[in-house]
């Protein structure tokens, strides 16, 4: 059962990603990307990251993709116009570079995990079961990674100010 769900989610994610890249209409691309994100949320649940799956749906599929769709509607470029794919040479070059990247990533199979630091199977699942999915992630986030967490809030403030300043209509 686990394997079937995992395989189905993976295949739907990959097919959706291909469709996202190849659709002409930006709206269709965005909706296929939402599909990828939902499938990734399924994979997160299967990989013992239940809270991250919820955050994935809320933040990525919810907030970020709505922002994308909102900008597409705002600029009124939702209709599929003439194809914005590169020409034949650009296409071949892009696909060749893509295949090279894939080959390099497959080459990383040679890397072995450090023996000493590797946890036995099911450790995370047990932690999540004992502490609850939220508590298991919150403890390191608010203890070990407290300072990065606080710096993140400054970064979000900077992004907020930057977004307003950049998108503001200048009044002459």
């Amino acid at each position, binding site marked *: 059962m686990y394997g079937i769900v995992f395989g189905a989610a993976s295949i739907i994610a990959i097919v959706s990603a291909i469709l996202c890249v190849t659709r002409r209409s*930006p709206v269709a691309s965005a909706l296929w990307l939402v599909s990828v994100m939902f499938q990734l949320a399924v994979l997160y649940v299967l*990989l013992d990251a239940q809270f991250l799956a919820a955050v994935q749906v809320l933040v990525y599929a919810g907030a970020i993709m709505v922002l994308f769709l909102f900008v597409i509607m705002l600029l009124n*470029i939702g209709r599929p116009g003439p194809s914005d794919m590169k020409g034949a040479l650009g296409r071949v070059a892009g696909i060749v570079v*893509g295949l090279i990247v894939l080959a390099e990533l497959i080459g990383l199979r040679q890397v072995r995990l450090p023996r000493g630091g590797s946890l036995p199977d099911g450790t995370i699942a047990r932690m999540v079961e004992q502490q609850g999915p939220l508590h298991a992630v919150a403890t390191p986030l608010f203890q070990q990674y407290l300072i990065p967490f606080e710096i993140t809030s400054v970064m979000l403030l900077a992004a907020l100010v930057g977004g307003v300043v950049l998108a503001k209509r200048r009044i002459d």
Partner: protein
Amino acid sequence: MLGPSLAVSAILFTIGVTGVLLRRNAIVLFMCVELMLNAVNLTFVALARNLGLDGQVFVFFVMTVAAAEAAVGLAIIISLYRHRDTVNLEHINLLRG
């Protein structure tokens, strides 16, 4: 499930890279970047099962950065559209040699 997860992640990342190289629409380009970030997040979550929960914490930070990046990037696209009336990167070639 570590191997299959990493394989899916590698394929999604490759599709994202190919999309960035193939498309000219700035918004679709941004979506491909988001796709690559998602693929990396999957790697983090998969490796967190073997190397501890730090990987899951890191995904939070990646998501935060992605949200900030999307906000600023889309603001840049809006201001670009105001100036040039297009989001097709072929027509935005001021720096081309």
